[in-house]
């Protein structure tokens, strides 16, 4: 073989790297995220996230709707936690109006929000594990998620786009057996979390793929705007439900899981613990569910009951006015943040005194969390990028809005 010339060795230099497109149609980017990777062999040198493929202009649409008509739009932002978005929006408008919400409505909102958190974390856990190669977990998670979707269907008539919260309360009384069904679910659920953990937490392959991977320090996480479990996985102990309570969260006792390692495994542990804590909140909400009205006493804002409309002229007039011309909201501005499953979800609503919001801006937790990705992955392997994307739990609908 001596007559063959040896392959000329490439000089280490600028042409060592190549550009690789990941997405927008890629199963592990959880939607239509496009990443432009500059790679040197298997090692990632640079990452540039490219977003906007799902931009639907929801913020612009909101400006053309009455306040109450915006609620269904907020569902469509994040298809995994519609109720969290509903809650954040209605809380912001209620703060603008100065409305007091009856306790039963508040507790119902908390109950449903924690079910939403469980739902969202289950989808995250299933897809995240599937990205890394643990296919079974996905089936287990979707089994319980189906139960939750049935609960949502029972209470609101919809599995996913629930639009159940209204400005001033909730839409309907939950059906008669609803609380029993939730209790049944809440009693079964901790054993299911044990099942997921049996599959993953001690699994040596899982640990090899997640421990020490995509590490981020607390300082970097704060500087880059991380929130939620992504921030708590780096050891920053903040949870808006506990620290800046809203909607009656101050009445509930729960722990805020924090891990200090800042890697994929730490974020995994935080979220799995949150599943258990959310279940605890669900049980407390069931135990202490107050009696009373589910809507605020504000006839100019809250739609009257159907029965009253049939018998009282006043109620009919209010109904007609709210539907045809909306209700005016005193001028001002409010920033309301809630702890969504992904982090700090914030609604900034500006009113100019008319019946349509002057400006609605959604502070997206995912948009900020996505900025961590280059810091997490540069210098690591391509396979770790997949683990890192899963660990920050992005929903592209929320990023692009």
């Amino acid at each position, binding site marked *: 073989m001596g007559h063959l010339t040896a392959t000329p060795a490439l000089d280490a230099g600028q042409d060592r790297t190549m550009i690789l497109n990941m997405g927008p149609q890629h199963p592990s980017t959880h939607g239509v995220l496009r990443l432009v990777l500059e790679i040197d062999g298997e090692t990632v040198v640079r990452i540039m996230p490219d977003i906007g493929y799902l931009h639907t202009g929801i913020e612009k649409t909101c400006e053309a709707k009455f306040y109450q008509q915006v609620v269904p739009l907020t569902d469509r932002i994040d298809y995994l936690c519609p109720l969290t978005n509903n809650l954040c929006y209605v809380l912001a408008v209620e*703060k603008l109006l*100065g409305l007091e919400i009856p306790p039963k409505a508040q507790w119902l909102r908390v109950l449903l929000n924690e079910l939403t958190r469980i739902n969202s974390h289950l989808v995250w856990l299933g897809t995240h594990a599937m990205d890394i190669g643990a296919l079974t977990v996905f089936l287990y998670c979707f089994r319980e998620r189906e139960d939750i979707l049935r609960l949502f269907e029972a209470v609101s008539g919809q599995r996913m786009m629930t639009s159940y919260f209204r400005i001033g309360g909730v839409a309907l009384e939950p059906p008669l057996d609803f609380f029993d069904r939730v209790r049944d679910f809440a009693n079964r659920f901790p054993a299911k979390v044990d099942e997921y953990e049996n599959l993953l937490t001690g699994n040596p392959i899982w640990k090899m793929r997640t421990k020490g991977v995509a590490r981020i320090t607390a300082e970097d996480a*704060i*500087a880059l*705007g991380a929130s939620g479990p992504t921030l708590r996985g780096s050891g920053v102990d903040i949870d808006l439900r506990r620290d800046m309570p809203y909607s009656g969260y101050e009445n509930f006792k729960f722990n805020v899981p924090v891990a200090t390692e800042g890697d994929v495994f730490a974020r995994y542990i935080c979220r799995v613990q949150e599943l258990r804590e959310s279940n605890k909140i669900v049980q407390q909400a069931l135990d202490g569910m107050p009696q009373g009205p589910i809507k605020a006493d504000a006839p100019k804002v809250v739609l009257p009951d159907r029965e009253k409309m049939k018998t009282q002229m006043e109620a009919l007039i209010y109904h007609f006015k709210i539907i045809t011309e909306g209700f005016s909201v005193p001028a001002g501005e409010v*920033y309301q943040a809630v702890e969504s499953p992904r982090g700090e979800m914030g609604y900034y609503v500006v009113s100019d005194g008319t019946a349509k919001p002057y400006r609605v801006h959604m502070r997206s937790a995912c948009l900020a969390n996505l900025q961590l990705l280059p810091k997490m992955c540069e210098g690591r392997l391509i396979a770790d990028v997949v683990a890192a994307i899963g660990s920050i739990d992005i929903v592209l609908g929320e990023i692009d809005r």
Partner: protein
Amino acid sequence: MPLAPAITDLEKLKDHPAITRLRGWNPAAVTDAKFDRDEISIYVERSAIREACALLRDDPNCPFNYLSDVTCVDWYPSEPRFEVVYHLLSIPQKERVRLKVRLSGDDPALESVTSVWPSANFFEREVYDLFGVRFAGHPYLRRIQMPENWEGHPLRKDYPVEGYR
């Protein structure tokens, strides 16, 4: 829970730690303030925004170390047309403060705060994309949501909701 009237007198609000801190540094930096619905808004002079943010971030007593959000409101046709809005959070103190910068419609530009918080990168790109407000010193000021070749800035009030057809 009736609404308390908004306090818009800067003198009455001067004891708020963030305002004290900013005015102690540069009395001209704070042009106005408002306390409404339990939220404080501070209007900051356009040229001072980056240093004001850095100052609040490094405040030893109440460090507003986390930038929650940057967005913009278009008050077309009145002038000054744009208000760029910064929501700051103090993670140790669990406090929020809102900073605002008013910009004229002719020259909507101000300094970027990406050197203070790298997280401002995407937020400011979004404001640039949807409102056409330029941020000087931003490392990569390009459209983020809309396609590169899009004309106009959709969240401006003179841009029709249905778009141009």
